[in-house]
């Protein structure tokens, strides 16, 4: 049975998530499965999926309902956490909440679970106001996630709260099932003047195939600051489709850094929607992959109000037979005068079989704007390599040094030192060098 049919029939067989059939959420889920049933998985015929084919990934016979607890200990997976610092933690194992790996809180803020937010009456208003409100309901993968709404992280930061430590969201898959499909759904609401830092990671612990179709909705209210880090360094059997939707209010700042260093197929759909004036959005990413890996960054910044800014900077280094895709879309609507939108995508191809497809796209309907995009594809500078080698630096290190320098712009803006150090280590490991210092 094809995955699509399996998903649709299992939705009707189990009514998806076991929610009360009379709740409004149930209607949203029913509508979503209908939409997914109609549209199906995206194919290469769709413009947005021109360079990324899901065919191979969808062939697996995924288990949709993994069995209970796996008894994972913190020490087994500690290295996947940013464990050097104190943090709130929400951890999921095979799609289920794992209390022994987590450190949640209800003290002045809510760092808890989607399932409890859905079931507890005190969160009803928040769910009604925010759930599925910014996600693109027309998108078939998002609809599929919505239909199977069950678990995920729920973070609610009240007005004026500066969260004292970062929040880590981790999704582990243990490989207990021969093949597993996960669909976490996260909702993050950041109140006026509140400030939060979030680190998200998906990690597979064995080589059994995993497909994750994740949806995260983030709401940044007035003057809120949201700082979000996505660390993608998964096993080569794991594929990830990450759909993130961010809605921003006046004077808010949202930063999303995506580090794509692993995985089989990774697709990041990162969407920013501006709901008021004087706000800014920052999207940055580093992609370093090799082998037959595939990373696709699809970004959208929708400038709908005047006096807003957006900054995009994506760097990619592609080795071996890997494929990179970048599709950055900036829309400046008619009312969005005085918009400043910048987009930059630089790529290095290391090997003959590596491919990069990039499409920095601008759609502009307002005249008093400053919009630019730049895009380059090239290789390491021979002269620079020669310079370093003539000073006694071996070729491998010299190359790594240049690649570090190339990616450094993005790394510089990481605000949590421990995250920066971790990414540095991951990059060094990826490049197979030890430079003896951190940049």
């Amino acid at each position, binding site marked *: 049975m094809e995955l699509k049919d399996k998903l649709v029939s299992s939705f009707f067989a189990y009514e998806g998530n076991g929610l009360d059939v009379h709740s409004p959420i149930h209607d949203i889920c029913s509508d979503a499965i209908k939409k997914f049933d109609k549209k199906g998985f995206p194919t290469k015929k769709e413009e947005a999926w021109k360079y990324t084919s899901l065919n191979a990934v969808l062939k697996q016979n995924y288990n949709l309902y993994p069995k209970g607890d796996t008894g994972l200990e913190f020490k087994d997976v500690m290295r996947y956490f940013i464990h050097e610092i104190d943090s709130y933690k929400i951890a999921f194992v095979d799609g289920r909440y794992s209390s022994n790996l987590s450190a949640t809180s209800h003290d002045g803020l809510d760092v808890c679970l989607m399932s409890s937010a859905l079931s507890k009456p005190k969160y009803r208003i928040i769910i009604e106001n925010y759930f599925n409100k910014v996600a693109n309901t027309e998108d078939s993968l998002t609809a599929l996630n919505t239909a199977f709404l069950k678990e995920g992280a729920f973070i609610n930061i009240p007005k004026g709260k500066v969260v004292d430590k970062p929040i880590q969201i981790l999704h582990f898959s243990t490989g207990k099932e021969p093949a597993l499909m996960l669909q976490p759904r996260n909702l993050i609401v950041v109140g006026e003047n509140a400030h939060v830092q979030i680190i998200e990671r998906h990690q597979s612990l064995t080589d059994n195939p995993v497909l994750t179709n994740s949806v995260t909705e983030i709401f940044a209210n007035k003057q809120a600051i949201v700082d979000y880090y996505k660390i993608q360094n998964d096993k080569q059997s794991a594929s990830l489709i990450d759909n993130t939707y961010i809605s921003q209010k006046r004077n808010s700042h949202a930063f999303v850094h995506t580090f794509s260093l692993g995985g089989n197929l990774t697709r990041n759909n990162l969407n920013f929607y501006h709901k008021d004036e004087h706000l800014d959005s920052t999207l940055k990413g580093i992609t370093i992959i090799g082998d037959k890996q595939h990373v696709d960054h699809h970004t959208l910044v929708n400038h709908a109000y005047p006096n807003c800014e957006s900054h995009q900077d994506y760097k990619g280094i592609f080795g071996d037979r890997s494929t990179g895709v970048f599709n950055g879309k900036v829309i400046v609507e008619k009312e969005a005068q005085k918009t400043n939108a910048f987009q930059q995508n630089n790529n290095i191809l290391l090997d003959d079989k590596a491919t990069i497809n990039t499409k920095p796209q601008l759609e502009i309907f307002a005249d008093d704007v400053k919009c630019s995009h*730049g895009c380059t594809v090239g290789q390491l500078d021979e002269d620079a390599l020669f310079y370093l080698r003539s000073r006694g630096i071996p070729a491998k290190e010299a190359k790594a040094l240049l690649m570090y320098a190339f990616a450094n712009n993005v790394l510089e803006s990481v605000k949590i030192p421990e995250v920066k150090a971790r990414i540095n280590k991951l990059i060094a490991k990826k490049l197979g060098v030890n430079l003896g210092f951190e940049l």
Partner: protein
Amino acid sequence: MGYTEEELKKELETKEYEYGFYTDIESDTFPVGLNEDIVRAISRKKEEPEWMTEWRVEAFRAWEQMIEPEWANVTYKKPDFQNISYYSAPKKKDKYNSLDEVDPELLETFNKLGISLDEQKKLAGVAIDVVMDSVSVATTFKKTLAEKGIIFCSISEAIKEHPELVKKYIGSVVPQKDNFYAALNSAVFSDGSFCYIPKGVRCPMELSTYFRINEAGTGQFERTLVIADKGSYVSYLEGCTAPMRDENQLHAAVVELIALDDAEIKYSTVQNWFPGGKDGKGGVYNFVTKRGLCETNAKISWTQVETGSAITWKYPSCVLKGDNSVGEFYSIAVTNNYQQADTGTKMIHLGKNTKSTIISKGISAGKSQNSYRGLVQVNSRAENARNFSQCDSLLMGNNCGAHTFPYIEAKNKTAQIEHEATTSKIGEDQIFYCNQRGIDTEKAIALIVNGFSKEVLNKLPMEFAVEAQKLLEISLEGSVG
């Protein structure tokens, strides 16, 4: 008193399409609709050989299976392909031997357009092939060119007189089944220009084709084939106009360029089809497939100034097949009122050390939408490919849009590709600077737009550059945002 923005706007709005007149020439038009019989009838009418007829029919059968593309960033009412007459020729008795025999009214048309064939012949030294309602009516300077061995004639003539060349090259760059409109064109093209430059010959003058749609309810489907043999050079010019009409006219042309080893082709277009009224009524649908093939060390350079057409859908492309070949694309696209343009280029790097340059300038005013859509593709065997792309957009007023869709696909690590794009408006400080020095706003805008487009205008042959500059002014004056 200065020239106020209001006045400017008014003047711009009331600026009529200068070339909108209808020539009353008796013409020979086919019944509307399209089927295999019509295709065969066109071929018969043109007294074409059997292979050509079959080639057309093959294209038609392919076309029937195809669906109209919808991916372009334009919205329009799709033309009803069964409601178009696929053949319209100015009625002719015999072949003209000299210009004197041409219908005087037709000549008058050209005079109105400022293209007096006679005069142009003497003064400008440009050899022109005039295609009216898809049939070539006059080719000038044929003799002078023949001395050099250059063949410059209508394509129907070429099919009869140089079948070996046509047979070898037609459809070799744009296959019949390439796309919906190319297939349609292949089936029903009624005429067009053919040009062959022999080995090592440098064409002594600019060759030029002039297109005009005259008859109502007809489509124009011309086909141009330019072959530059080894080591030759040719500069080719193409101009277009159409009378003002309420209904939309369809123009689906195919241009194929073949540059053999060491040859160079420079192809310039000034497209000024009727853009539709200021309320967006009428105008020409311009769905054109243009592609050039470069062999070793060859160079193809496309230059286009697009000011007309209600809908433009056009991507002059270069297939850089040979090593060291060069492709260039210089474009100015101006849209005003309700015009929509989706234009750009494709540079396909196949050979080693291939280079391409793309300079695109988009200017949108009124309620128009202007898109750049380009593809730079470097295949895995194209070592040391180099591309530089720059697309700048200028917006005038906040009812128009400027869009950029660059596709970059690199499969070789030695490729060096740069792309940059900017969008801006005419700065108030720039205008103020001019005003301060006694240049009125209208002139200042012309000056700034001219400067904005300079890189492309510079690439046009002299005669065209003047016309293009004038066209820019007509299309844009006073649209200050």
